[in-house]
């Protein structure tokens, strides 16, 4: 028998290469453009897919092993939390409204990310990005499901989240996050990667996912906190993928730079508008605040994002120009949003309330330039009215921005006393916008944005009533019909926190769990 020659030991990088890239081949029985039909039309030029640097090197066996370990721990904690009525340990029942916002606004997006990364992974001819995208697709279904499983127990005891899938597709303000992700997944695969992989996962994740998880940690919600912490290492992988995608595309061809710059500008603004919901959550909905929206924006975008864009400057990428306007809005965003939801509390699936004295003082200290001057007087007036039995619920419908779909509530940059309106005439119709940036996004792709399913327009067109509704009958109440279409139970899911079943039950149950009655 021959002496066995000692085999050359492969390095980590080489070993990973034979485990992924080595599997691929150049087809000859079908044309490349038929197998990969979606990669040319966006105008991005890729000359060499092999230049892709794998952002992490995880083979499937290692993936299963690590992820299963995390799943075991996570579900053990969820079970313990449920068994111990962990929901009664949150700071106060107002906190649960954050959970409602999260499951109806954010969790369904994790699911879209799952399908979107499957699509992007299938679309790219390079094996490196394909493997990374598919692994993220698998992670994203994890996030969607662990969120549903963690929050399932809250749904058993609190209102507003009982039909969150149905509501996500229908309720007026949920079209803001929904249209954001619909916009991304209907874009080409490269734009999808820039919008979700880079702008959302890399630039904005600290302003979206993290505030919810930190908020949960600060408010005694171990269930939500645990899935957040469990997702952290997945998110770290997603962030490195997001950054690698950008660098790869930019390095491939100088002609890619202006296309990518336009996408970064667009998606930073689109993402920021979705963060309006997070801003008000941070400043108003968490009984125990982690930090103000303004502080979060300064730390996570202005400082960290600033460093990132400095780093990208060598490719010719500059800070998105919308950052200037966002800086002007940071003293106002959360207050304008909360005022709106306070108004429309009859039509949303969570409760609103007026901040108490301590909270007003906190807001004054965090927003010395704007709060006492502009927003406190408004709140004091509403609070007085509520005390007199005139709690105001707005029953008329607001005009929506054609792009971000938020009601036109924002003020002119630099003048917080004047509502900002922009409009465009396109093919005989007039379209309305909340800002120059939303207007520009529309003007660049009008054929896409004219399709938007705007909740208010749809209500006025009669498309948001239960089947068989006759709006012409005497005494027809359109709001009641719309709430039925939303499957939103009037008096339980909506209205002011003060008169809510959630508040009453929480007090009763906490008493039952802590006192001998």
């Amino acid at each position, binding site marked *: 028998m021959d002496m*066995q020659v000692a085999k050359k030991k492969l390095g980590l990088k080489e070993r990973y290469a034979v485990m992924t890239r080595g599997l691929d*081949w150049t087809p000859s029985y079908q044309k490349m453009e038929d197998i990969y039909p979606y990669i040319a039309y966006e105008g991005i030029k890729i000359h060499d897919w092999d230049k892709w640097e794998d952002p992490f090197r995880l083979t*499937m*066996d290692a993936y*299963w092993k690590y992820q*299963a370990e995390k799943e075991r721990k996570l579900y053990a904690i969820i079970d313990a939390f449920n068994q111990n009525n962990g929901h009664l340990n949150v700071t106060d029942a107002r906190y649960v409204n954050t959970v409602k916002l999260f499951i109806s606004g954010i969790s369904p997006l994790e699911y879209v990310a799952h399908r979107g990364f499957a699509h992007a992974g299938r679309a790219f001819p390079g094996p490196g990005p394909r493997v990374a995208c598919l692994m993220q697709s698998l992670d994203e*279904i994890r996030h969607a499901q*662990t969120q549903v499983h963690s929050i399932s127990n809250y749904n058993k005891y609190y209102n507003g989240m009982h039909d969150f899938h149905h509501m996500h597709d229908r309720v007026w303000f949920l079209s803001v996050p929904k249209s954001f992700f619909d916009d991304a997944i209907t874009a*080409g695969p490269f734009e999808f990667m820039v919008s979700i992989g880079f702008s959302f996962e890399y630039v904005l994740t600290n302003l979206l996912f993290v505030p919810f998880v930190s908020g949960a940690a600060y408010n005694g919600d171990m269930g939500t906190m645990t899935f957040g912490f469990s997702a952290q290492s997945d998110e770290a992988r997603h962030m490195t993928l997001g950054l690698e995608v950008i660098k790869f595309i930019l390095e491939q061809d100088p002609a890619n730079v202006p296309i990518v710059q336009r996408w970064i500008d667009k998606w930073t603004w689109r993402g920021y508008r979705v963060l309006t919901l997070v801003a008000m959550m941070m400043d108003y909905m968490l009984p125990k605040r982690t930090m103000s929206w303004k502080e979060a924006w300064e730390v996570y975008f202005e400082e960290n994002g600033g460093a990132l864009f400095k780093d990208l400057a060598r490719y010719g990428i500059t800070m998105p120009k919308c950052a200037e306007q966002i800086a002007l809005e940071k003293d106002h965003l959360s207050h304008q949003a909360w005022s709106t939801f306070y108004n429309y509390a009859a039509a949303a699936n969570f409760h609103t309330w007026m901040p108490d004295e301590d909270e007003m003082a906190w807001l004054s200290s965090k927003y010395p330039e704007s709060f006492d001057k502009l927003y406190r007087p408004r709140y004091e007036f509403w609070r007085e009215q509520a005390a007199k039995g005139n709690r105001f619920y707005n029953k008329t419908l607001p005009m929506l921005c054609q792009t971000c779909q938020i009601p036109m509530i924002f003020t002119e940059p630099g003048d917080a006393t004047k509502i900002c309106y922009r409009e465009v005439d396109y093919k005989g119709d007039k379209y309305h916008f909340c800002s120059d940036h939303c207007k520009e996004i529309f003007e660049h792709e009008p054929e896409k944005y004219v399709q938007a*399913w705007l909740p208010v327009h749809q209500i006025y067109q009669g498309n948001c009533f239960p089947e068989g509704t006759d709006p012409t009958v005497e005494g027809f109440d359109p709001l009641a019909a719309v709430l039925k279409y939303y499957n939103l139970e009037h008096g339980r899911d909506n209205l002011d926190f003060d008169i809510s079943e959630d508040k009453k039950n929480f007090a009763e149950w906490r008493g039952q769990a802590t006192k001998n009655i």
Partner: protein
Amino acid sequence: MQIDLRTVTIKPLRQTFDNIARRIGADKPASRYQEGTLDMQQTANFHYRPTWDPAHDIYDASRTAIKMADWYAFKDPRQFYYGAYTLARAKQQDTAEANFDFVENRGLAATLPESVRKTVLELLLPLRHVAWGSNMNNASVCAYSYGTGFSQPHIYQAMDQLGIAQYLTRVGLLLGDVESLDEAKRAWMDDDAWQGLRRYVEDSFVIKDPVELFVAQNVALDGLLYPLVYETIIDDVLSSQGGTPVAMLTQFMTDWFTETRKWVDATVKIAAAESPENKEVMTRWLSQWRDRSAAALLPVARIALGDRSDEVVGEVVQQFNARMAKAGVAL
């Protein structure tokens, strides 16, 4: 004697989410599979058409010829949501790791008769590329099919096939070296024995109908390939020639096929039982892709079976037909 641990009991307002309650009744709690699967995919009021496929909605049941009154009729008998899936695979991964260690530490690769080693390298290594093709096809079905009941198992299947391609790579590195992988790829690209199968795989890449792609990949191709290669050639034929260590290295694939075919059979059954029209389409796809698959695998079988190939492939096809008959499709 039973101990009585007391906890504070609060009566819940509801057992589960409304969408689940509408399907299973409001009086019972839902399983994690149900809460993680049913109605997870958005169904209404999409904002924009895909720029990459303007003829369809983002999720669109009309991408396939199969018609279902309710796409959540598709249920995974394994009840795989992400957590259950990864736990199952982590366990199999542990076994695979122990098997690789066993073969490596005892130097069992060196005890293989040269003819067996050569056959294994020639037969198994090009299958890395077939598994990679399946990874891509299953990603495609996951992306473009309708309803999470149907789409969800395909992301698991996609990643399983990537895992299988990686296990095959490790077999190659253990019994051969990087050059063996290169040689297998050359055979995959050029040798006559592999061209029928490569053409099958590349043709499957351009199938647009997600359910047809499920049939071509997971039912017809894998339904013949796994029984032929792993259950027959490796576990029977080569084992009897001193190749048992190889069977240890491919145990993952054998176990995996036994498990996943339960889901595949259930899926075929549900689609075909829905309507005579569906059954007609499924029958047509199944017989067409089965015939192509059998023809493509025949020259591959010859690498290990020589003259017996026609007979063995014929048997595998018979078993496949019996399996489909049980799932309600007579071929």
